[in-house]
């Protein structure tokens, strides 16, 4: 019997680590990975809450799991476009350090 708060607290800790990664790392690929970590933390909270509200017959409340399904699809789309952008920036500027990518000119 694990209290649902433990899962939500773990989700909050993972989310904070992801936010810290976005703030301190200079490599855009690692910033993307931190965003994935934050999405994952949100998913964990969704599933934990969905499990804690049971509908009839001991089945969990499925809306939480279905939202996680949609979040996974959106994350896949986001990664495809984001990595394509990073590759294109690298081809144009030969450098992907985000400190030097502060202008929108090509």
């Amino acid at each position: 019997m694990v209290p649902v708060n433990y899962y939500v607290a773990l989700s909050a800790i993972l989310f904070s680590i992801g936010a810290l990664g976005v703030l301190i790392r200079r490599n855009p690929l690692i910033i993307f990975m931190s965003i994935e970590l934050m999405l994952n933390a949100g998913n964990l909270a969704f599933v934990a809450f969905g499990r804690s509200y049971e509908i009839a017959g001991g089945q969990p409340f499925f809306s939480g799991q279905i939202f996680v399904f949609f979040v996974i699809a959106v994350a896949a789309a986001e990664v495809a476009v984001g990595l394509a952008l990073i590759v294109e920036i690298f081809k144009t500027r030969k450098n992907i350090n985000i400190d030097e990518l502060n202008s929108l000119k090509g």
Partner: protein
Amino acid sequence: MNSDIVVFLVLSLIAISSALGMMFSRNAVYSALFLVLNFITVAVFYLLLGAPFIAMSQITVYAGAIMVLFLFVIMLLGAENLAPSKSLPWQKPLAYILAFVLVVESVYLVISRAQVDKFISSPEASLNSMDNLREMAMTLFNQYLLPFEITSILLLVAMVGAIVLTKQEKGEQK
């Protein structure tokens, strides 16, 4: 202290330390591998929470497809180690302080507003079975049919966008 709590604590220790390892690795390839470990740990949490379909999609989509894409791009660009550059001197300490505040206040809120009657027991055999999957599919394709179709359009748009972004223009010299 029952066995569920022990399993939870061990798994959360793995999850948090692999997340920290992802963030502090100098080499981006190691970061990606730590993140794969973290995703697999979260997939085990989904199994404990009685969501087998989500756990399997987590492993195939996140740990499989997305992280392979990341590794391809890291190795393609040679971006394992970026040269350190001049950045704002106060930015890192401020980021650590703000992240620490975020952890403390969110965990404090979660613990202090505890619903003491909400417990998650370990899943019975019926929860990780085909019945569970059938019920979830019924919910997905009845109640959430329109969002499902919109998601498929979103994936199509993302695919076309990625192809257009990386396509060489005709006559362009690279």
